């Protein structure tokens, strides 16, 4: 923890910047870099233990940095245990019920009644805490493994308390880059300071946790759910999932502005309790100029490309099947698979087998990870067969240099290819959107685009225009600049009104 000068914006990050490389971290670094007239305080939420190293060096407008270790509570020599019975109601709402911002406020008020800031002993280790845990267990989980409940309860409560009790840096605007613990901290900032709170969600936090929990085999179930249909007993997975869902709802309730990359995500946000008037889309943008400069070079074979890692989620096998169907009608087709094969070597191997099986050795070529700029000149069409995506930038990068795209209807693909529902004037289709896991439909769309010259040209033009108009980096930066300025001004105004 360093020095702390009051910042304009406190960015709240969970498990990402500046310690973990990846999409959100790169995005954050760029955001700070481009908003150079504003100062930032970085609050990184980290797991309880484990070494971390900086993967990014802070731009000069980062004026403060705080690490918040989850579940890391004050360890006191002097113990002030007191009954925690009052916490049971709001905590039950937060874990197995349907929680609202006032439940969190309720918890904060009770924690405030301790003479000194309560620590690990008072909240987790005391007999009073034990009674609270037993009581919560009996109420909803009396048939579940007590051992697993115990650790889950400690982890969930420890996480919650550490968010509620850690020092909160001062800033004019609080901006969380996910819901979950980051959103929870933003909600606390709202309750404590009344200042504006923004949330930007790239992926939907609750969806990501749901996937993670579904594959967590450490949560053992003792009872068989198949015996009765109307089994209302809760499993420990429900405990975790309900807690995360509640955290999202609380964060949405506290937020003044909820931003995501594309409208598709908003359905999930609305389902988790966000109100429509707070929702806003700010898509990610690309360096349009860089890609617009790339000149297409004449080539003989009609060429398509799947640009992405060779992993199941990208459905590379579906792409190969599409190629097999296309080859019958377009014998001189060329298809690149551009992306790393190292992440799932088994899958990559199976894909290569499939290519041999369909005798596509002459058609499909695995290039490995390559610079997209070098290949774009000879690619006619980008194909995305993924079963899950958020906002794949490759559609925009190809689009900027006039390459249309055929993509499955996932994430922001339809919005980028066909235009947002409120696009004015309508620019038209920049390619085609096809159903998931349907090689025949994909093949047909690709065939049409590659054979109908006029249609192809109109798509190329539409996607180029759309990218230039709506998906440039500058627009993304202007949008955030405007958001920050608006909320900072609102805060200044509120302060003045207070006198």
């Amino acid at each position, binding site marked *: 923890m360093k020095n702390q000068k009051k910042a304009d914006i406190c960015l709240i990050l969970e498990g990402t910047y500046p310690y973990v490389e990846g999409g959100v971290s790169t995005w954050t670094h760029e955001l700070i870099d481009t908003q150079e007239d504003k100062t930032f305080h970085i609050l990184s939420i*980290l*797991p309880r233990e484990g070494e971390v190293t900086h993967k990014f060096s802070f731009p000069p407008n980062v004026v403060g940095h705080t690490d918040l270790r989850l579940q890391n509570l004050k360890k006191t020599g002097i113990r002030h245990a007191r009954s925690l019975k009052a916490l049971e109601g709001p905590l039950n709402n937060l874990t197995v019920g349907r929680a609202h911002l006032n439940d969190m406020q309720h918890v904060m008020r009770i924690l405030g009644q301790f003479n000194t800031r309560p620590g690990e002993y008072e909240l987790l*280790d005391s007999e009073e805490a034990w009674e609270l845990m037993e009581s919560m267990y009996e109420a909803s989980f009396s*048939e579940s493994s007590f051992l*697993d409940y115990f*650790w*889950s309860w400690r982890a969930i409560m420890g996480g919650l308390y550490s968010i509620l009790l850690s020092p909160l840096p001062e800033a004019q605007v609080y901006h969380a880059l*996910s819901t979950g613990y980051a959103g929870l901290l933003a909600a606390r900032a709202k309750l404590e300071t009344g200042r504006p709170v923004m949330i930007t969600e790239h992926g939907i936090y609750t969806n990501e*946790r749901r996937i993670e929990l579904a594959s967590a085999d450490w949560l053992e179930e003792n009872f068989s759910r198949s015996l009765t249909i109307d089994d209302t007993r809760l499993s420990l997975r429900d405990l975790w999932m309900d807690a995360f869902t509640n955290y999202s709802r609380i964060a949405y309730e506290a937020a003044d502005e909820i931003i995501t990359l594309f409208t598709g995500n908003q359905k999930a946000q609305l389902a988790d309790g966000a109100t429509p008037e707070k929702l806003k889309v700010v898509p990610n943008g690309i360096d349009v100029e860089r890609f617009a400069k790339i000149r297409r070079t004449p080539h003989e074979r009609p060429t398509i490309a799947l640009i992405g890692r060779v992993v199941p989620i990208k459905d590379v096998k579906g792409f190969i099947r599409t190629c097999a169907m296309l080859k019958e009608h377009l014998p001189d087709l060329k298809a690149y698979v551009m992306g790393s094969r190292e992440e799932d070597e088994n899958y990559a191997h199976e894909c290569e087998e499939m290519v041999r099986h369909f005798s596509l050795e002459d058609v499909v070529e695995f290039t490995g990870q390559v610079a997209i700029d070098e290949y774009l000149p000879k690619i006619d069409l980008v194909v995305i067969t993924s079963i899950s995506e958020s906002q794949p930038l490759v559609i925009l990068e190809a689009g900027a240099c006039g390459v249309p795209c055929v993509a499955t209807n996932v994430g922001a693909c339809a919005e980028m290819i066909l235009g947002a529902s409120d696009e004015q004037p309508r620019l038209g289709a920049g390619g085609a959107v096809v159903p998931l896991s349907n090689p025949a439909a994909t093949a047909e769309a690709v065939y049409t685009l590659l054979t109908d010259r006029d249609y192809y040209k109109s798509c190329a033009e539409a996607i180029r225009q759309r990218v230039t108009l709506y998906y440039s980096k500058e627009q993304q930066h202007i949008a955030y600049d405007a958001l920050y300025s608006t909320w900072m001004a609102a805060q200044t105004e509120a302060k003045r009104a207070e006198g």
Partner: protein
Amino acid sequence: MAGIGFVIQKLTKKDDLLGVFRAYTHAAMASTGPWLFTVLALIGITQFFTSSDPTDLNADFGYDNFRIVVIYNFAFSLVLSAPVFMIVTRYIADEIHKKDVTNTPSVMLGSLILLYLIQLPVVGWFYMFYVDFPLSMRIAAIVNVFMITSVWALAVFLTALKDYFAVSVAFAVGMITAALSAQFLKDSYGEAGMLNGFSFGLAIIVFTLVAKIFSEYSYRLDRPFAMLPHFRKYWELAVGGIFYNAAIWIDKWIMWFAPEAIKLPSKMVMYPDYDSATFLAYLTIVPALATFMVSVETHFFERYQRYYDDILGHMPLRRIRENQQRIIDSVLASARNFILVQGVIAFLAILLAVEIINLCDMVYTQIGMFRFAVLGAFFHVLLLFELIALSYFDSRKLVMRIQIVYFFANTLLTLWSLNQGFPYYGMGYFMASMLTFGLATFLLFTHTRKLTYHSFISNNNAIIT
């Protein structure tokens, strides 16, 4: 992907609950071994080498010197080696739990070195500078204390490894040799000869045990002081151990300053009447010790294991509570049995005190002390069971506190009884044992009622460290 959901997994995996309990159970048994051995050896020596006429001090100087040195050496070595004894016991139990005992011979050598280093300053000063002895006697006394200490240290290793038979045989052969050679050397070499003869018998025990340990494990000298970090981790065991052993001796030490005690020309003091009366009283608890072992093995252990197995087997709290009740029932049933058995024995011993004293060739002035000591031993042994039971639950701090209380209770009440005069001699030990037993009973039941809380929180290494 933002988020740190992965922490969840790490936290739930920490199932450090059971820890080393199971291995520790058997090791805890070992703590009663030295006590019994001491009692038997001292009674044997007091009876075997007692002076024929207690009023004629000059007649049997050599015997008294021999006896007093042995008693002092048992006291020195039990109290001073207690911390090492407790820590090494725990270390070996941990190693067995981890299924890696390759380091055992090294740690055995390391412990011996450590024990000698701790005792040398005290014993060296005492025999070389404080008491007035010929040089041969000084050296024999120091050799003897090291032999006694070695026997303790080695017994820890063998009992922890559960080879009861080898230990018993070694002890029997050694003690018979000790008695015979002490008797044999008495005439030619006097008091120092007796002491060396006794040490020779102990040496037989020591070397047999060393050989046994080396034959059981491949010899490899590597990290002999690997148990040292345990002193920091389990400091309560070390502190508790020293207080408990001092508590056992403090009433004797205080009584050595009674007006009726004798002061030898060597400046050493003792009160043979009190000592032999209490040692004899200790013998009354042997049947209770035996029933305790059986009861633990058959009743308690099975329930105890079930309790922890079900926790780790992901059972719901309802089942854990049922198991907890079964443990409480077992403790209550056992307590009732012990109190009954031991009560009858104590009652008979008190009733037949005169006959027993006569039978053992002791004097009538010891009758009162013997009766108090029998009552004291009755509560003492029950207290010991409670301490062992609490050790099973790994509540080290609680055990340590009770041991400290026992020490101070015995100190203060023995001082009080000494002050009250001869009829009260022995009452201090009795009252201290009774009061501490009362306290320990209360704490044991409070603890068992909150067993699940303590198992998960206060005695859970995954949380308190």
